[in-house]
């Protein structure tokens, strides 16, 4: 892994960029989120240090899933009316493929990004208990929940631009025995498909 060193535009502490796809870097000393523009860092939004509630995952750690080694690059925390959950941004070592591990009250789901929602897809149009089309998939998903949410903050590096406090509405559903998550972020709305797993499957 080739890393690139930066300085936090807020406090001057060193920040490391590890993957070419990084778009946001969060300073581990002051909690400042910065966006990567060309080859410089630009502070974005208020400083936000995430409260550590304890997790087996930690930025910088390596682990294996399904026999493939991965490393943990970043974390995104989303707040919604019933609480919050964390999304751990990981890259597989063998081919650099990105994936996300969702951690919600000790329940883990591993997601891969499969595409973007249709241009006309709007939060209001999804109906819980109904079916909704999923781009690039022949079958619709059964919508199981949706909620208004916002970005609490991040850690490490993330593959899109985030600003703490930005809206992060989501729609969740089920399609062919898989979990579907549609995240409607201002910078990068995306569809993720994944499966729940037991923590023991992380193979540490």
């Amino acid at each position, binding site marked *: 892994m080739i890393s690139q060193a930066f300085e936090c535009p807020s406090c001057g502490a060193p920040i490391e960029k590890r993957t070419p796809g990084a778009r946001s870097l969060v300073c581990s000393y002051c909690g400042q989120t910065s966006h990567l523009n060309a080859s410089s860092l630009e502070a974005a939004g208020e400083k936000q240090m995430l*409260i550590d*509630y*304890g*997790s*087996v*995952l*930690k930025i*910088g*750690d*390596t*682990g294996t899933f399904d026999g493939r080694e991965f*490393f*943990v690059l970043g974390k995104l925390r989303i707040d919604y*009316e*019933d*609480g919050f959950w964390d999304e751990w941004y990981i890259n597989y070592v063998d081919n650099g493929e990105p994936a996300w591990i969702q951690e919600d*009250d*000790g*329940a883990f789901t591993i997601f891969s990004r499969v595409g973007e929602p249709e241009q006309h897809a709007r939060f209001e149009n999804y*109906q*819980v*208990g109904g079916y909704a089309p999923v781009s690039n998939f022949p079958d619709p998903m*059964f919508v*199981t*929940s949706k909620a208004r949410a916002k970005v609490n903050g991040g850690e490490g590096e993330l593959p899109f631009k985030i600003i703490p406090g930005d809206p992060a509405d989501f729609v969740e559903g*089920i399609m*062919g*025995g*898989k*979990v579907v998550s549609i995240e409607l972020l201002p910078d990068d709305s995306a569809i993720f498909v994944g*499966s*729940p797993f037991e*923590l023991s499957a*992380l193979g*540490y």
Partner: protein
Amino acid sequence: MSSIQTQTKLASVNQLNCQGCGNALSVLNPRAKYIACQYCGSVLDLNSEEHQILETLGKPERHAPFSFLELGMTGVLGGKTHQLISRTRWRMRYKEFGYEDGSAGYSNEVWVYDEWLMMDENKTYKYLIEDKTGYWLSEEIVPEVPMLLNSDYRMQFYQGEPMRQVQEFGTAEVIFFEGESNYDIKKGDSVRFSMYRDKGLDYSAEWRMKDEEEIKEIEFFRERPISKKQVIEAFGNNEQVTELQENEGFAKFVYNMALFGALAMLIMGIYAIANNGKLISSQSIPLSSLTQVEGVMSGAIDIPGPGLYKLEMRASGIAQNSEMYVLAYVMDEQKNVVNTLDGTFSYYSGYDSEGSWTESSTRSKKRFKTNKAGKYYLQLHGNSERTQTGQVDVFLRSGVMMGRYYLMALILFVVIAIIFRTRFK
């Protein structure tokens, strides 16, 4: 880079005092937003500095757990240490599928159960369901073919087929909770649900409503029963395990004794039915003599002692197409009537479209008890429309047994055996 390391201890405990009663409370999950005091029922806001009281749920003792389980207990289930961090008591008002009077349908039911939230060392949650009848482990699942209750009351979301009859559907409402919660919870919160059964497991769809029209969230669960023994072995202390073993040993003993008793009663019952007793008196009296007003008095019958006796009348030689009513008084030495036996004896025959037929009644019998030995007599009276031919033979037997009592005892022992068989593995 370092590798991911598992946490080896349960979360560090945060101690606080209840604003309602002052008792010490423990918060195990740092994510907890609320804690409901198990001593006074106050719900505290953990995000506020003063831990202000949000609501009071009423007296916890009115909603005591169904068994020995208590908040804070730790136990090993599935190889992992779990701690009971909250309990929610739900009251279901629902329709239950069943058969009555030969037809299938749904009946209105009300049921109460507890949902224990267990947290392991990695802060992973599991649900233990408890009611008056037993325990179930509940886990959230991702179904292959998600669906909600439909108009034909058949579901199969886990695999898609074969469709199964919905066993229960209705609403569950929170009536009490204790311990900590990461989510908003308050008394009166409700979920709607429908449940079907497949291969011994319960599959439930649960959905929370945003309002009367709009669903907020849908979840799917699978519940598998676990035995009380497993729960006690996981959470019980040594005393409780010993008590369970003693109870099981006692249940096994009662079961074996009941089986032995049932077998004994079966043998005795068969013997009682087959045993006709010992003949101690036999007398023949012409039916023609019974029409006299004063009746016919038998000779003295010596009854050797207190006990159970069988008196039997058998008629023979009755004229065709006639009948006669015979009443026998059993009298003691002082001619006091101590028992009676009657019978209508008849013999009819004729022809119909299917040929000749006969119909007769020639026997009457009765068991009776006496308390003392002595001489007894029989006085027989008869009532017939015409002078009868034939005779009635009167037999008295000792040493008879009451077969039906053995049968009743047999049923009792079988019921006891069935009840106690369910109390041990």
